[in-house]
């Protein structure tokens, strides 16, 4: 099915996108729905985007549910490992 479910957030950072160029990331769109490329019926999809730069200013990832959970844990572990004074 199309879940239609979409969660959006603002982001501050950069991503390496089309033509190997970096761009400023301002928005994240996260949804669990059909992937475009991954070999699974549904995946956790994240778009790192800058809508002001147009539709192609986007880095897309499609992860299985298990991989997405592992990513969450890995991100949390990486953040936890850094000294507090660096995380501003």
């Amino acid at each position, binding site marked *: *099915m199309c879940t239609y479910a979409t969660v959006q957030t603002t982001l501050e950072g950069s991503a390496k996108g089309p033509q190997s160029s970096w761009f400023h990331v301002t928005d994240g769109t996260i949804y669990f729905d059909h992937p475009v490329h991954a070999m699974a019926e549904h995946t956790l999809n994240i778009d790192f985007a800058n809508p002001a730069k147009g539709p192609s200013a986007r880095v*897309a990832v499609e992860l299985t549910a298990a991989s997405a959970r592992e990513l969450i844990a890995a991100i949390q572990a990486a953040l936890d490992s850094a000294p507090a004074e660096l995380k501003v």
Partner: protein
Amino acid sequence: MVESTSMSESLCAETIIISGNEGDEIEVYLARPTEEGSRGGVVVIHHMPGYDRTTKEIVRRFAELGYDAICPNLYWRQAPGAAPDDAAATARAQGGVPDEQLIGDVAGAAAYVRSLPASNGKVGVIGYCSGGRQSVLAACNVDLNAAVDCYGAFVVGTPPEGFPLKVTNIVDQLPNLRVPLLGLFGKEDSHPSPEQVAELDEILTSLDKPHEFHSYDDAGHAFFAVDRPAYRVAAANDGWEKIAAFFATHLGG
């Protein structure tokens, strides 16, 4: 001597701009047999991942079956000229396609194929996945002759609370269904579930709306999608035969 057939070996496929909802200019993919003659039209509604290569292959297949086939790019307004996946992502981030806009775009596409020289005036609509629901929606609101719903979720049933795209079921519109409906579903699908398919069947029967439903074993959602793991060759092949027969009955002549 060449045997007579409705299959078309020689096709013309192109991308053009037509008038969609409220006269908006929208991109469409148009494929049609090159030979002269009288034939019906088919409006293809693309799935949520977009106006992509596999959808265009479907459009060309309808042309091969002998129809003037057209697919509106539902995301043209939000992302003109973008890659299909980027356009789908942009449209999703902006809240999706409103039902009223979809109805207007299908009406514009149907009017365009009816204006073509070979048109016999009859036009069908078909949609896959989210487009399945939109196909039924169009068939309740647009002057058409036949409709096909391929595993559309939320024709009946209630979406979970908090859906950002605000999709709703369209049970209240079913009394307005104007055309025969062919429904093709997978028994292993959960949206629509076999229970929801049965509910839709019962509602249409109670409303005395002509419909023909087929549910396939060993098939779930998106069993027509040749580039996805959900593809099921037996269900897809039989489904294509059902579609061809259904459109021949209602769009021929």
